[in-house]
């Protein structure tokens, strides 16, 4: 599914845009001018990676020290142990679109419990 995010002009380099999908997805515009989309929630705890510290093609969770690779989703060090999903980004006519991954997300314990509670 292709989801419109925001106009490219509204997302300067170094900034992030969070899509309120379920689970949320964030598009990062790196300092080098690349665009990446990953799941917004850290796989360790309920934290928004859109608030994180981006360096090169890695984003560090705003709470703890785990960094996620924006290209591959892999995690570098604890406390997170699982990767985040990555999503394809397409720019058409100046608009950023995200092609959502069909893989299962790796959500942290507390978020999974909350979603399960909502479904029950």
């Amino acid at each position, binding site marked *: 599914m292709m989801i419109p995010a925001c106009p490219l002009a509204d997302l300067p380099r170094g900034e992030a845009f969070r899509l309120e999908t379920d689970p949320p997805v964030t598009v990062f515009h790196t300092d080098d001018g690349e665009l990446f989309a990953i799941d917004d929630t850290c796989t360790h705890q309920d*934290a*928004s990676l*859109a*608030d*994180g*510290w981006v360096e090169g093609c890695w984003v560090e969770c*705003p*709470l*703890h*020290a785990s960094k996620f690779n924006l290209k591959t989703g892999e995690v570098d*060090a*604890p*406390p997170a*142990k699982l990767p985040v999903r990555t999503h394809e980004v397409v720019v058409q006519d100046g608009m950023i679109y995200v092609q959502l991954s069909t893989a299962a997300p790796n959500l942290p*314990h*507390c978020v999974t419990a909350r979603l399960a509670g909502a479904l029950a």
Partner: protein
Amino acid sequence: MRTVAVVGASLAGLSAVRSLRKQGYDGRLVVIGDELHRPYDRPPLSKEFLAGTIGEADLALETDDEDLRAEWLLGTRATGLDRTDRAVRLADGSEVRADGVVIATGAAARTLPGSEGLAGVHVVRTLDDARTLRDELARGGRLVVIGGGFIGAEVASTAYALGLDVTVVEAAPTPLAGPLGETMGAIVTALHTDHGVRLLCGVGVKGLSGEHQVDAVLLQDGRSIPADIVVVGVGARPCVEWLEGSGVELDNGVKCGSDGRTSLAGVVAVGDCANWYDPRTGAHRRVEHWTGALERPAAAVATLLAGGAVEPGLPRPPYFWSDQYGVKIQFVGHAAGADSVTIEEGSAEDRNVLAVYRRAGEPVAVLGMNQPRLFTRWRKQLARPAS
């Protein structure tokens, strides 16, 4: 270098092992740990694990597919370091000879003199500590926490959520004044009273009462606070006794350079036991932060492998976090030496503060309460080398 011994099997030791392999070390790697457990995450021990929302498997720091090709000697305490043949002596009388040694023996919780053998009295440092306390908290009752620092505050917050009757006793007039300064220490500490947790400040503890099981905490001013469970959170001391007489210089832990090198060639120190030279402040500082244990070993291992020929980069300013009563508390930098602190965003009343500490107008530390986005921006700014 054919054998490296890592003494200490917690986060700092594991990070050193990972860094060794990542930096190309291909030789024998022996990890010595005094606990029986493989490396596990300690921050949840006073929070989610204590509350029972996560289990022991969630604490594992290694991933399932990880192969560090290390020999793990667990449940084995190091008792000495022999400088002539660089051998680590173990409690069972054996020794591990190594070309390089990483000291990562951490710190141990301080206890209350005279509390030995009294049931219901706890510290929170190890998985075994937390497991016992978790089971007792689950039975409910009256909890008295001695020490209003971060561990004490987190245990109080967790126990409050579990429905216990909680009192926090702190000897200083303002808890957390050391790490956060008086003003912000008072604001963070107000979280206790917000939730009806009693906070007694500026009064010392004289002792505990009880025959076999603790029944009260006796204060210096004569008061007696009834207790079914007591948690002592009065800090930690570096575990370096085993290095006495080894030639490794000790001063509030293992004294080391900004690259982790100690006074002995081929020996580096990391984690809570290491008193690193901080080029930002021009002084040695022993930092008991999780992030330090995670990040510093890379530099120490580089030093070890290069025989001390590498120039370390500027370390990031020390960062820690705490979770109390649903509020995310984050701190970076050094509050000591600041001459002002201003709330730049949010309000103290709403407990969603972003506060900046400055010295001569320059930011030196930042505190966030439920302000992760702004906090990250400030943390990044603080990490930039001074211009």
